[in-house]
């Protein structure tokens, strides 16, 4: 478990990137921090491995204040995957993946064997092991980045817009792989993105952030979709209209709101909450909030 308690970060130039941020990030779940550019996501993430130290407040990992942990050692125990992979361009794929284990003193031979196995895990052919990063496609580089983040078998994996720079088809692939990996490996993943679809797809817990890392809403994707607490959230999750796959209909009902997921064609795709176990079907013009439709354009809505 990672806990932020009233954490603020003011950069030397006066920018207050994070303002009184408090959050509990549960273990073995994926928590997604989502918000537009500049709202403080990267700063939050980098405070977890002490690449950035908070100006005030406390961050604990499993109850231990991380300001008491030596940064270099903390970082070797926390996986980090960033946009543009951040691979070391002068190291072959295998050496990139084996970096942290070797820093931690694992014998090179052992580290390389483990690295090859990790290439399998992230779905890369072992024949790529001797290539340099520049010889890989963007999607392959990101997979290597993920393999490297996992190499020391950390409990915590931090991912900063890892798929932001790859093209949409590859991105979908990588997102599905991430879901599979998370099922298999059971890490505490903190994932940063500005893409709300990605956040809802990957997150067990989604934190929608406004400027200064103020939490606009937090909850499971279903909770947020069903009940945006503010205009800001409604707009944010409804951004990119016409590209949404599913819409939520909130239907007036004497016992409360029933929520129906409707696809782009207006067909019901599912019910989120039906108080009383009954779905009102009478209302012909549901008040609808649009949510997602990228794939419906590809024909599989």
């Amino acid at each position, binding site marked *: 478990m990672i806990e932020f308690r009233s954490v603020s970060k003011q950069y030397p130039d006066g920018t207050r990137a994070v303002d009184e941020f408090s959050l509990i990030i549960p273990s073995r779940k994926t928590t997604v921090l989502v918000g537009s550019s500049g709202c403080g996501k990267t700063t939050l993430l980098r405070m977890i*491995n002490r*690449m950035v130290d908070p100006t005030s407040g406390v961050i604990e990992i499993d109850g231990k204040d991380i300001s008491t942990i030596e940064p*270099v050692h903390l*970082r070797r125990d926390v996986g*980090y995957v960033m946009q543009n992979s951040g691979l070391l361009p*002068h190291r072959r794929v295998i050496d990139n993946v084996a970096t*942290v284990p070797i820093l931690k003193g694992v014998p090179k031979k052992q580290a390389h064997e483990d690295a090859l196995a990790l290439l399998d895990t992230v779905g890369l052919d072992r024949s790529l092991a001797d290539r340099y990063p*520049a010889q890989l496609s963007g999607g392959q580089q990101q997979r290597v980045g993920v393999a*490297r983040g996992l190499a020391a078998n950390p409990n915590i994996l931090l991912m900063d817009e890892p798929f932001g720079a790859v093209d949409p088809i590859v991105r979908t692939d990588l997102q599905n792989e991430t879901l599979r990996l998370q099922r298999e490996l059971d890490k505490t993943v903190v994932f940063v993105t500005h893409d709300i679809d990605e956040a809802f797809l990957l997150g067990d817990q989604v934190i929608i952030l406004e400027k200064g890392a103020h939490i606009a809403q937090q909850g499971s994707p279903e909770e947020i979709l069903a009940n945006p607490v503010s205009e800001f959230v409604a707009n944010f999750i409804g951004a990119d209209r016409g590209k949404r796959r599913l819409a939520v209909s909130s239907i007036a009902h004497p016992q409360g709101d029933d929520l129906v997921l409707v696809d782009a064609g207006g067909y019901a795709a599912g019910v989120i909450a039906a108080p009383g176990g009954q779905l009102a079907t009478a209302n012909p013009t549901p008040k609808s909030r649009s949510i997602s439709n990228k794939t419906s354009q590809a024909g599989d809505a």
Partner: protein
Amino acid sequence: MVWVFNNLTEIWQHTLEHLQIALPPIILSFIIAIPLGWLAKRFPPARGTILTLASLLYAIPSLPLLIVIPVLIGTGLQDPINVVIALTLYGIALMARSTADGLRSVDPDVRQSATALGYSPWTQFWAVEFPLAGPVLLAGIRVVSVSTISLTTVGGVLGIPGLGLLFTDGFQRGLVEEITTGIVLVIVIAVVMDTVLVMLGRWLMPWTRVASPAVRRRRNLRAVTT
């Protein structure tokens, strides 16, 4: 060519002396410039001062320098060590800027990802930033190499060993062939040394040779998909 064939031993002797004097400054200036470049990169406000002071070394005229150095360190006027020191200073003047520029050329993303991986600052410098500055360092040291090999001849004016003696001697005796031989040999040494450096760079930085084809292929692919 008659003069050349009659003096092969002497020419070879001067060539070796020339190398013995020229090589240490090339290596020393490379090494000494590393901490200077690091300082300039680490403390941006000091960068201008450090690099300007280093560059000013190059403004000191060589002959006076070759006379002042023995006075300062108590060597004889014709001691080759004087030339080694003077040329090291000139090398530093060129190399400090190259090193600072090279270190600055390292992609900040790569530097940050190295930090995130858990490199200690010292290891990160030697294992990541220094090698990635390699191409710029190589460009710098190639200039230093050529300039040092050429400047080594200045010692000849004071009778310090090296190919410079062929110039002074040839000039005094009116032997154009001797002067020409000196010039040609200096150029040959400079070219050979430059080739050695380029090969060394390829050997030490294999990743610099692989980038372009894959990048081009990827660009093409992206152009097709969008």
